[in-house]
Structures are given as structure tokens and as C-alpha cells.
């Protein structure tokens, strides 16, 4: 056999074997039980080993400058959080904070977020346990997303869950709005199977990946995101930066549209079933023995044009007033720990949205909540 013939045969063999391996690996990846992948991701992370865990869940719209990115893999997200690498000690009273971008700390450095401000208070309960707060907030407003995170947070043995929310998280159409919910099919379906949430598990918003989409090729972007999250860990360790905070931003809207409608509802028309109160019930249920403090989070109240009609960009006055009343009633009926903090922060302490706080605003909210939290920490049962 001459060398050209040998080379041709070698080339053919290489192509054949490479094709077989490619197909086989993709097929194996696609049929591998999700739990196995979860187990791997939970245990293989540079965070909390090579580099410190992140103070908040990974989220970033500008990865190159924030050294952070948004991904939908809950296992990788939690594995990168400091809570995953912090064993609970006897003298710790562990409090996890869940909620939207205001809890995560949009436009706030890590040392200014609500959880950091609460930690700075140095709260100690009557049993001598130090209250240690963990930021498990995540930008995007949806109660279902919060329940997803709350359920996952149970792995980290919290003694108290503080759940900050606002009316915008309640409409049914917001429940499946966030990519985190849309891309965690198996976990969301567990929530949806419960009648409490009243959401159709076959809703087209929920992404049900096909076989091809579950292969390595189909999952290349999510897989690359997990790897990038690890690599950005070095930058997180080097700089402590996990969010790009611009020098200036467009402030929250002061002048508002003369629009009284809210998700198609008009004044006087607020059926309870319009909103996913069931998610609150579900969340409280998942918390089990762990007490949950539900907080109606503070919001900016506009003084500008049409402020007689609307409180702010998000809410017409009538609907927000009705929501507050409804929340108080439902919480009382269900015996939930509920605190209405809607005016706990000075109106000047909001940044680019009606719910995002300045460092001072965050401090004010922490001071307001400290007393309520301590009450529960002293009487957790």
C-alpha cells in the first residue's frame, strides 16, 4: 500500500470515528438524567474553593465590565454563591433574603445591598445567635421565580426567609416572564403541579427542549455560560466587582402618564384571582417549619404630573391601594408574618426605578426591617 493510500485510509478512519464519537457523546448528554448534571454542577465550582463565593446570585447585562453574567442554571448559580460555601454554625441564625432587583441590589455595591446593611446592624437574638443575612434576590419581578429560589434556598438551612415583593410580581402573566423560570422546566413543573399556583404546565412560555436541544450542541450556550461564570470568578476575586454601575443613569420617572389601567384592569375592578397570591401560599408551604416574613417593599411616590392618578411608573393609585388592603387581609387570614414597608424609605432615596434604592435608602429599609426580623428571630416558632 503506498503512503497516499494509507493517508486516505487514515483520514477516513479519523472522520468516521470522530463522527461516531460526536454523535454518541451528544446522545449520552441528551439522555443523562438532569439530577446527575445538577450533582456535578453543585460540586464542581471554583467558587468557595479557588475564589470566594459571590455575595449575590450571578446576573449581568454587561459581562465584560461587570465580570458577571445572567444564566439559567440554578445549580451553577447557587454553587457560585457564598451561602454554598458557608457551613452553618451553632451560633448563627441564618436569614435568606429573596425578592427582585431591589433585593439583589441593582446599582448598589455589595456592601450597600439590603442584606449587607442588615449584616452591618450586627443583630443578635435572645438565644445569643448572630443573625447572618444572605442575598438571594434576583432581578426580574415574578413570585414564581421567587418561589423557585426559595425552594432551592431550603438546602442551605435558613432559620428565616425574608421575602420582599411588590404588586408587579403578582399578575399571572408575569409568573412565567423571567428566563430563569422559562428555562428550569423540571423545577417549575414541580411548582405548577400544585394547584395553588393555578398556572397551566403546558403554557407555551415554558420552554420544553426537544431531544436535539438537549444535546451538547443544543446546550452549547448554557454550557458556555457555566464555564464563563467560573472564569469570571477570577475577576470577581481580583476586583470584588460583580455589577457595572454607570456614573450616571436616567432617574425614576417623576412625570407620569394619565393612565389608570393596570394589566387591563380599571378602577373598581380587582378580582383576587387576577393575581398569583397562590405563589405566596406555595412559598410559605415550601418553607415548611422555617418562618417567612413577607414584606411589601418600599416604592417611590411621584409628586409630578398625574401623580394624583398614579403613584409611580408601575402603579395607578387605586390598584396599589387595593393590593395593600388585599395583602393585609390575606396575610391575616393565612397567619403569615407580613409587614408593609411601602413608605419605609425617603422618597429621595430611589435611583433609576421606583423600587431601586440608594445606599442610604437601603440602610433605611434595613433599620425598618431589623425590628420585625428580630421579633421573629427571638420567637421563631
Amino acid at each position: 500500500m503506498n503512503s497516499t493510500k494509507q493517508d486516505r485510509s487514515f483520514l477516513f478512519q479519523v472522520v468516521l470515528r470522530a463522527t461516531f464519537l460526536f454523535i454518541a457523546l451528544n446522545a449520552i448528554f441528551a439522555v443523562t438524567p438532569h439530577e446527575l448534571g445538577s450533582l456535578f454542577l453543585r460540586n464542581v465550582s471554583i467558587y468557595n474553593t479557588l475564589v470566594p463565593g459571590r455575595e449575590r446570585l450571578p446576573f449581568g447585562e454587561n459581562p465584560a465590565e461587570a465580570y458577571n453574567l445572567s444564566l439559567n442554571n440554578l445549580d451553577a448559580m447557587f454553587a457560585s454563591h457564598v451561602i454554598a460555601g458557608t457551613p452553618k454554625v451553632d451560633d448563627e441564625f441564618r436569614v435568606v433574603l429573596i425578592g427582585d432587583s431591589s433585593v439583589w441590589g441593582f446599582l448598589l455595591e455589595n456592601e450597600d445591598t439590603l442584606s449587607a446593611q442588615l449584616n452591618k446592624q450586627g443583630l443578635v437574638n435572645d438565644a445569643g445567635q448572630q443573625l447572618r443575612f444572605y442575598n438571594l434576590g434576583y432581578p426580574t419581578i415574578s413570585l414564581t421565580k421567587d418561589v423557585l429560589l426559595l425552594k432551592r434556598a431550603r438546602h442551605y438551612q435558613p432559620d428565616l426567609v425574608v421575602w420582599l415583593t411588590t404588586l408587579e410580581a403578582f399578575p399571572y402573566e408575569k409568573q412565567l416572564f423571567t428566563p430563569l423560570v422559562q428555562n428550569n422546566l423540571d423545577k417549575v413543573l414541580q411548582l405548577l403541579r400544585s394547584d395553588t399556583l393555578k398556572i397551566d404546565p403546558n403554557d407555551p412560555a415554558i420552554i420544553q427542549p426537544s431531544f436535539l436541544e438537549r444535546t451538547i450542541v443544543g446546550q452549547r450556550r448554557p454550557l458556555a455560560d457555566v464555564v464563563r461564570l467560573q472564569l469570571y470568578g477570577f475577576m470577581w476575586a481580583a476586583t470584588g466587582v460583580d455589577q457595572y454601575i454607570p456614573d450616571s443613569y436616567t432617574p425614576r420617572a417623576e412625570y407620569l402618564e394619565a393612565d389608570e389601567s393596570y394589566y387591563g384592569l380599571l378602577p373598581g375592578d380587582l378580582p383576587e384571582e387576577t393575581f398569583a397570591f397562590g405563589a405566596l401560599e406555595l412559598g410559605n408551604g415550601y418553607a415548611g417549619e422555617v418562618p417567612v416574613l413577607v414584606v411589601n417593599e418600599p416604592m417611590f411616590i411621584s409628586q409630578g404630573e398625574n401623580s394624583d392618578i398614579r403613584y409611580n411608573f408601575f402603579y395607578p393609585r387605586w390598584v396599589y391601594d387595593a393590593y395593600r388592603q388585599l395583602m393585609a387581609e390575606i396575610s391575616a387570614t393565612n397567619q403569615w408574618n407580613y409587614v408593609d414597608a411601602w413608605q419605609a424609605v425617603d422618597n429621595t432615596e430611589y435611583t433609576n426605578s421606583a423600587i431601586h434604592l440608594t445606599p442610604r435608602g437601603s440602610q433605611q429599609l434595613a433599620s425598618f426591617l431589623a425590628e420585625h426580623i428580630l421579633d421573629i428571630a427571638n420567637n421563631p416558632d
Partner: protein
Amino acid sequence: MTLNQLLVFTTLALIAAPFFNSRWRGWTLMIGSVAAIYWLQPSTPIRNLDFWLPTATLGLTVLVWSLTREKEQENGPRADLIAGIVLLVTVLAIAAMRFLPFQITPSRPPQLYQVLIALVVLAAIGLILWRTASGKALSLNIGVASILLLFIVLKSHPLAENASAAIRGLTGQSTDLANAFDIRWLGFSYVAFRLLHTLRDRLSGRLPNVSLRDFTTYVIFFPAFTAGPIDRVERFIGDLENDFRLDASQTILGLKRIAIGVLMKFVVADSLALFALDPNNVFQTESTTWMWVLLYSYSLRIFFDFAGYTHIAIGIANLLSIQLPENFDRPYLKANLTAFWNSWHMTLAQWFRAYYFNPLTRWLRGRGWSITAIILIGQLTTMALIGLWHGVTWNFLIWGLWHGLGLFLHNRWADFAKSRITISNQAIANIGGALLTFHFVVLGWLWFALPELEQSLYALGILFGGGV
């Protein structure tokens, strides 16, 4: 070059290979390279500039060819006339894509009549140069000076900004928005080296006869267009003239080089880039340890990025039966700085050695300068020029001088140690030398990775104990 572009180039090379024969190969490579440089050109904020820049590359190529061409070539003017017409038609065809729903240029090409006028003017200038100035020392020197001037304008921020403002004025766009980065002329640095090489070789009478078709293919050969290597024209046309034979072993070799390049560039280098030192993160880093990590990451990243591109270029060229020269040979493992520069961006170093260092040192020797002074001046100015080739800034100059000084010191040390020091354990000496050389190069990257003096000095301070 993106991964998609690479895939297209590789596939086209493999598909086209069996249909090549010696007659069509040259034409296919020229037309393919012309189309590729328009496709590779990134978009610019100045209207139609992403079309005019590749056109200018072709224009420069044709003009330099006109200047360097022997009046009496083997194939006579007919073959070159055909090549000129093919070039013209190819560019017009690319411009005519403005009437199609898709274009290979990043934005819609300009009006066809504008392109036609530009090409006719260019052809006329080329013809006049060929008739009147071809091969004359004065015109060749003017050619060298013009390319150097263009180079300086593009690589110097204030001048590039002024140039941008001037072009913006011509296109009716706001000159207030002019920016040095507006003129993203892809491949110009490497094109300039190839053109200078041919002009200088024509001056010294070493340039072989090259047809317009082969000359154009040499200058804009698409695998090496964006990041080298810098080939020599006589070697390149030798490959072009050889019978094309893509056999299985050459295919394996080409694909292997491409695969290694993809791994180095798109996996390793792009991953390292996420935590490599850059102007955004330098002041955010206050820890000595992490500053070293970021600097190491940058050092490895620049190697894997550049060497990866070279592998890809050589691999694609292999599939087209062109053997491009090697550009890297495990430079970070070399035991001294001279060996490093003989294995890092080798074709650039060879270019400067041939066209600057050797003539300069010969000239200084002729004037009776001492060896030490000749080496010092030669190394410092050569490396300073290599630094400035990357951009006319203080930091690039310092980077060049840093290496120039390092090369000089190594040269003197090697000369001193040769007869005085006996090394008992060569392996340990090599490891120690490699570590020392690597760290010398790594510290040099401080001036290369960061554009401002202040940033480099800050990083240097943190690296040596100023951190927390």
C-alpha cells in the same frame, strides 16, 4: 476571523481543491482573496468606509505592483491586463451586491458609479506609474515613504482622529464624532510590510518578476491577511507556480493545524481573555497576587490568540497548497530573550532584521562605531520601531525599548559569559533562563496591554508589593 468565517473558508477550500488545476488555481485564489478581504473587513461608523478600505488595500497593491514591475515581463502586459480587468470586475461585482438583499460587506456598498470612477482613476494612476515611474529609485522611495506616512497616520491617535474627521467631512457626517478608531483598516499593518518588502527588494534588485495576479494574491492572501505570517514574495509565488496537489496527508496536516488553532484561539485564548489584564480592570485590582494572575493570563492569552491564528492561517493555506512560514516556536520556553525573539512572531522579527537591523548595523560598522554601541543602537531602535508598529504611543515605545534593552543586555552577558563561566548543569540553567526570560517578557506586557503610562505604573506598583 470568526468561527463561522473560518468554517466557510475551510469548507470552501476543501470543496474547491479537487477542481483546482494550475491554470485556475491562481485566478481562484486571487478572486477568493479579494472577496475575503471585503467579507473580513469590520464595519466602521463612517459611511461606506468598510467598502472603501478593502478597495484602498487593492488600490495600494496595484500601485505598488505598477512601481515595482519589470517593464518587460515574461508573459507580457496581456496577462496583467486580464488580471486588472478581473480585479475590476470582481470589485464591481461586490459593489453591485448593493442591489441584492445580502452583501458580503458589513454595510451596503456605495453607489456603483462612485466605485467605477474610483477604479478607473486608480487604473489610470497605475498605468501612468507603470509607464513612467516603474523601477525608478526615486519613485520606489516615494512609495516607501508614502506607505510609512500612511502607517504613521493610522497608528497615531491624534493623526488618525484628524483623518477620520477629514473622511467624515467628505461623507457629510459630523466631524465632532471623529474618533481614532473609526478607521479600522483590517490587515493594513501586514499589507504594509509586504508592500515595503517588495519596494525595498525592487530597489536592491532582488525582486523577481511577479504578475499582477500573483502579486495581488501574495499581498492579500486571505488566510494570512489579518494576522500574518509575513511571507516573502519569491517564496510565495514559488508555491503558487508549483502544481497543486492536495492529497490526504496534506489535508490531514491542514485540518490538524486548523483544529489546533481553533483550540488555541477560540477556547484557550478567549477563555483567558475573560480574566486578562486590561484597561478596565487594572485600577479595580488592588491585590498583588491577583495582579500577577491577571498579567499571567494576559501573557498566555496573547500567545494563544496569536499563535492560534497562525495555526489557522497555515492550516487553511495548507489546504490550498501554500506553505506559509512558521511564526511561533514555543517562545515562552526559551532560555533567553534572543531565543525568545527568534521564536515569537518570527516573520516580523526576520522582516525587521532584513530591512532595518542589518542595513543599520552595516552602516554603523562602516563608520567605525564600536560593537557595543552598534548593538545597543541596533537593538534599541529596532525594538522601538517594532513597538511603534503596534501604535504610536508612549507605552508601545517603552515596550519596544524594554525588549531592546533586554536583547542588548543578553547579548553583552552572553559575550561576557562565553569565555568566563562554565555551566555544570545545563538543564537547570535552561529552566532558570526560561523562567527569567518569561518573567521579563511578562513584565514587558504591562506596557503593551495597557494604553496609558499611568495604568502601567500603577500595575507595576501593585505587582511589587504596593497591593493589599
